[in-house]
Structure formats: C-alpha cells, structure tokens
C-alpha cells in the first residue's frame, strides 16, 4: 500500500504527534511496508464470523453504584507537570 505524505500528516495530526517534514517522509516509507504486511489479511473470507474481543467470551461485570475510590488529590497533583491552587494548569483555551 502506498501512503502519501498528506495521509501521514493527517494521521500525525489525529494522533497529536508533532512531526517534521523529514520524519513524515521516513514514517511514510516504514508505514507503507507495515501496511503491505497487514494487507495479507484482506483476502481472507470472514463472512459470518463473529468478531472476537475476549477469549472466554465473558460479559461485562456490573458492580454496585457506590464510591470505591479514596480522595488522593494531593498525591496525584504531586506528580503533575504544572499545578496551582489545586488545579492542573494548561495554556489558555477560552479567550
């Protein structure tokens, strides 16, 4: 499969990864190789086959709707890149 630089640029944008022109060029070549490998599965007839997400086909467990987490605000904020007055700081998004 041949991807274009524009395809790669679009995916990088969706994935929130900054990439230089040179990185896009090299990613394009490598991703094309990987998609050639993946293309093998397109020829397989899977009509009527149910997709498999868990080997045991278990259903999702439900739990009581009660609070189970304890408040660890201070511990969690200690490892944040930038906090102030108990808030996580990010660049301004609303004028």
């Amino acid at each position: 499969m041949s991807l274009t630089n524009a395809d790669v640029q679009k995916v990088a944008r969706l994935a929130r990864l900054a990439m230089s022109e040179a990185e896009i060029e090299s990613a394009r070549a490598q991703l094309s190789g990987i998609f050639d490998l993946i293309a093998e599965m397109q020829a397989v007839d899977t009509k009527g086959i149910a997709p498999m997400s868990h080997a045991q086909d278990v259903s999702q467990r439900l739990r009581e709707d009660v609070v189970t987490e304890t408040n660890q605000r201070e511990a969690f904020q200690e490892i944040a890149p930038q906090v102030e007055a108990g808030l996580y700081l990010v660049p301004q998004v609303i004028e």
Partner: protein
Amino acid sequence: MLNSSLQQLGSALRARKISSVELTQLYLDRIAALNPALNAYITTKAETSLAQARAADALLAGGKAQALTGIPIAQKDIFCAKGWRTTCGSKMLENFIAPYDAHVIEQFNNAGAVNLGKTNMDEFAMGSSNETSHFGTVKNPWDRNAVPGGSSGGAACAVAARLCAAATGTDTGGSIRQPAALCGISGIKPTYGTVSRYGMIAFASSLDQAGPMGRSAEDLALMMNVMAGFDERDSTSLQHDKEDYARDLNKPLSGLRIGLPKEFFAEGMSSDVAKAIEAAIAEYKKLGATIVDISLPNSKLSVPVYYVLAPAEASSNLSRFDGVRYGYRAPEYTDLADMYEKSRAQGFGAEVKRRIMIGTYVLSHGYYDAYYLQAQKIRRLIAQDFTEAYKKCDVIMGPTSPSTAFKLGEKGDDPVQMYLSDIYTIAVNLAGLPGMSIPCGFGAASNGNPGMPVGLQIIGNYFDEARMLNVAHQYQLATDWHSRAPQGI
C-alpha cells in the same frame, strides 16, 4: 545460593540459615557489580528493598512465613509500585513516581516477598529486542553483543545473570516467552484474565497478560501461586477458583499427547533451532509422550492481525499521555494543541510513535471495518484452530523464536523484520491461551561465542497452566539445560 530454587531459598529462610536481609544484600551487591554492563535494571532502591527484607525477617522469625516470604523478586518496570519510579521504559514517564500499587505488586507484598528493583524493558513493551528502551539496551548475558529479546528483556537478563531469584514479566505478543528463550530461562504467560492488569501500564488491553520468569518450571509454579487471582478492579479479570499451580509437577508424562503444528515446522526456523527442538521432542518421547500431527492453518495470519489490533488498542491507551496530569510535558509550546503535540513527540520514542500512527490510521473514519473488524474476525479463526487441535492433543509444542538471539542493531531499521521475530508466539495471545518457553539446548557457536540458548514453546489449553508446568518440570528433571549459567556469572 545463587543457583538455589525458590523452594530451597524459602526453606533456608524459614530454617533461619540465611536472613532475607543477607539474601537481599547479596543480590544488591551483584546488581551494583554487574548492572553497569548488563543494564537489566532501570531503578533500584536499596534502602526500600532492605526495609522490606527486615519486615520479612520479622515474619520468618514469628513463624508467619509463606512460600516466597523474604525472597527478592525483580519487577518489570511496567508495574506501578507505590513510591517507586515507574517508567515503562519511556522518557514520557522518566520521573513518574507511582502513587499506588499494581495488583501484582500487592500480591507479592502480601506474600512477604522483597521488591529488588524495576527491570528494563522495551518502551511501553513495544519491541522484541529491548532496543527501544529510553534507558538503553539490555545486554544478553550469554553474549553481550546480542539482544536479550523483548519486551521483558531486563527481567530475562536479570534471571539468567542471577541478579534476582525470579522476576515478573508481561506478554502481549511474546514478551515473556521470546526473551526467556533468548536468555536461556523459563517463563509462562498464563491464560488471558488469570493475572490482574490493574496497575500494569496498558499496551494492548485485550492481549496484555502478566506472568512469571524464572530458572525452572518449579519456580514458575510458586510465582504463579502468588500472581494469579481474581481482581474486581480489572474488568477482564476472570472469576476463576484459586488453584495450586505446583500440584501436578510430579505427575509422570506417560500418555501425554503432544501436538506439533506443521505450520511451525514448515519454514523460517533456523537449522540450529530446529535441531534443538527435534532433540527436545525426542526426549519427550522417552518420557512417555506420543506425538500427534496437527495443523493451525490460520496461524500465518497472526502477525498481520496482531499489527492491526495491538497498535489500535495502543493508540487508544496511550492517548492518556498528554502532558497534563502526569508524565512528560514539553518545555516550550504556543497553545494547548501545540503542547499535546510537542509533549507526545518528545516524550515517545520512534517505535511507540510508529505504532500509535498505525493504530490511529486503522481506527480512523472509513477504515474500521476493513482493518479492526476484519482482524477481530480472523482472530476468532485463529482461536478456533487451537480449539480443533486440542481435540487431538493435550499440549502443543514448537519453537519460541525462529532464531537464537540476534546481534544488537541487526534489525534496527526494519520494523517488519523485527515484527516477524514473534511469529510463533503471537497466535497464543490472540487466542488468549497460556504459553511458556523453557530452555532446550544451544544454537551453533560462532565467532568464538558459545552457542546461544534455544527455547521450546509449550502451548496449553485454557486454564491448563498446572499441566504445562508439569510437562516442563518433568523435562527439567531429565535434562539440565535450565540450570546452565552464562560464562562469568
């Protein structure tokens, strides 16, 4: 002491012939001496480990010891351990101090084991050679110019080099079994859902499974007894009765039916690996097993299916690393989008970014059915092949890896070649089955190096870990491959 089994170490500790502090110090001294060359550990905290050892000694003195009380265990740096730096091999988490314990860590703490340190790994467990770690490559103790395998390369190296009594690993596409094979140790990936994923940094959630790595099947059984168990905090954890994984170790193997998939022996395996595997099968015949020819016709699709599913799940899991609540944030940025893009571009390494890109692409608008859904359907076909095969046999055997450990840098620029080194292990994760690797010989010697270890893969049916450990243990009673140590260790 360094070559003692976990059972022997436990007995020595309980008989007070050695203290946990002495044993822990012995390993810490070895790590200080050998880790600069091998790079198996990312983080050690001697004072914390020794404090745990002192607590274990108190339990031992009080007669309250369990099987692993006081035994120093190396933890893969993918498990959050409260107060420990937990990096997952990434610059993204270089300064992340985990605020809580993973379930696996809790289980070892409750068992009175000592956390000896956090082992090196491929970044976010994405790699087969440990070369993608932000903290440098791990060296294979059998040949320091060769890779240890990955992603649990630090764990495999630490076990082989006697830098711990046993270790934990995780396996998404072969990350316990392949490094175990390449470093000449034993490792088991249990049935998906057996060990809780709570606090284990997620790569591909429908495939990730933790398991033990050690020097023998007997050691793995004791480790499994600690690690396995239902945990309601992991929504895919299975409500399965607690079992003793050592219960069947001593059963004879007469009547055991071993299935050999013709696809595993068709092509791609190097001749020295083939020779060692054939010799192991012959040994099993001597132990009373019979051989059954089986076929896994869809297993050839494992690699393409895996490289859709695993990156898709990874791109979703890794979207949490945005530089806001924890992890790396770029020093300079203009606005919020720029902060996300620069933090992620600088915090993730090349292989992680590559997989995020693949995953983002296959999940993007218009491609979901052609990639993700098609892969999930073929996944069922792959699993059904195994179900058919287990009507005719009890365990399946074959190589773990197509070759012995390759040289550092050898597959560096070609991701596809690297991905193909997991060709025999990936199908097992897709099917959710348990798989293990045990040492079964050595490959051809070259350039003055001794031969490198070869791993025999044993694949079991769902929840059949006790039988697999029995099958491996009986072989290890009859052979001594598992007790060989690298030169200079």
